[in-house]
């Protein structure tokens, strides 16, 4: 009974937030709706006894990612409303609805074809990756992360460093004296300048020719 009530409330919060993200004209309100969805998913994680992931979900998503969104929105001052009545591409809304219903239909058909059962192999009883009763999930995730997925975990740190460097590169202001000249562009410009100079050198000649012709005439 409790589980049902928790599921229904959390699912309603999730779906309400998702619809809010789509239909809110103001991006700040959309970001706040996203927080509602993330929170609802955290509640559903707890309902499935994934306590560590629920905490991480709130800390990383609601605490870091959405804050990043809000920072960008407010620092750049782009929080003005979007006119949702404009349909930029003709038939875009209808196509989007068809695609959405198609994705939903396909996933539901896939789910119904196995009558709601997972078809994968269950964890072997007694193996390290079996979810044991009475063991904290953080302990098990940690063990799995630092044994079976150690290489992926290390690569993740490289990914994060690359992301930070990329973000700094992208969002830094380029000063004029720092600007790196593209050798191809420079060569192109030099060529164009030389051509212009040549044309300038030729045109006085043609003028004098014309003058000479006038004199002859």
């Amino acid at each position: 009974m409790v589980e049902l009530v928790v599921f229904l409330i959390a699912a309603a919060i999730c779906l309400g937030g998702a619809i809010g993200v789509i239909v809110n004209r103001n991006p700040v309100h959309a970001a706040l709706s996203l927080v509602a969805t993330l929170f609802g998913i955290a509640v559903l994680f707890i309902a499935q006894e994934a306590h560590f992931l629920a905490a991480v979900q709130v800390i990383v998503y609601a605490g870091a990612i959405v804050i990043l969104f809000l920072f960008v929105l407010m620092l750049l001052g782009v929080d003005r409303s979007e006119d949702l009545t404009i349909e930029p591409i003709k038939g875009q809304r209808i196509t989007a609805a068809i695609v959405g219903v198609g994705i939903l239909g396909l996933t539901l058909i896939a789910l119904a074809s196995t009558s709601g059962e997972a078809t994968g192999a269950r964890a072997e009883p007694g193996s390290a990756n079996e979810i044991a009763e009475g063991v904290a999930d953080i302990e098990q995730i940690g063990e799995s992360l630092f044994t079976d997925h150690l290489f992926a975990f290390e690569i993740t740190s490289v990914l994060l460093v690359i992301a930070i460097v990329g973000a700094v590169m992208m969002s830094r202001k380029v000063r004029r004296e720092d600007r790196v000249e593209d050798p191809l562009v420079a060569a192109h410009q030099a060529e164009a300048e030389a051509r212009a100079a040549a044309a300038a050198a030729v045109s006085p000649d043609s003028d004098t020719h014309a003058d000479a012709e006038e004199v002859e005439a």
Partner: protein
Amino acid sequence: MLAVAEVTPSWYLVLGALLFSAGAVGLLVRRNPLVMFMCVELMLNAVTLTFVTFSRMLNDVHGMTVVVFVLVVAAAEVVVGLGIIVALLRKQPTATADDLSILKG
């Protein structure tokens, strides 16, 4: 007293499918690049919910480990994406997704 229906794992999977399609529709409909990013986050969250559900169904902790990786990749993706959007919106404060065709800056 109402007949109490039992919450089976497939309820969570259906909810995940609903959230995923909502995110997909939002991604296709909205034009503000920031809101499009939020819709991508919505889709990623639907997938993590599905992963945790399968983890419970198969009694296997690997599904939860994958969620940690999804979280990290989502964070990296948001950082780089927002960097691009900041660079774009600084030039053109009213930029929509249509203006992203001129990424060279």
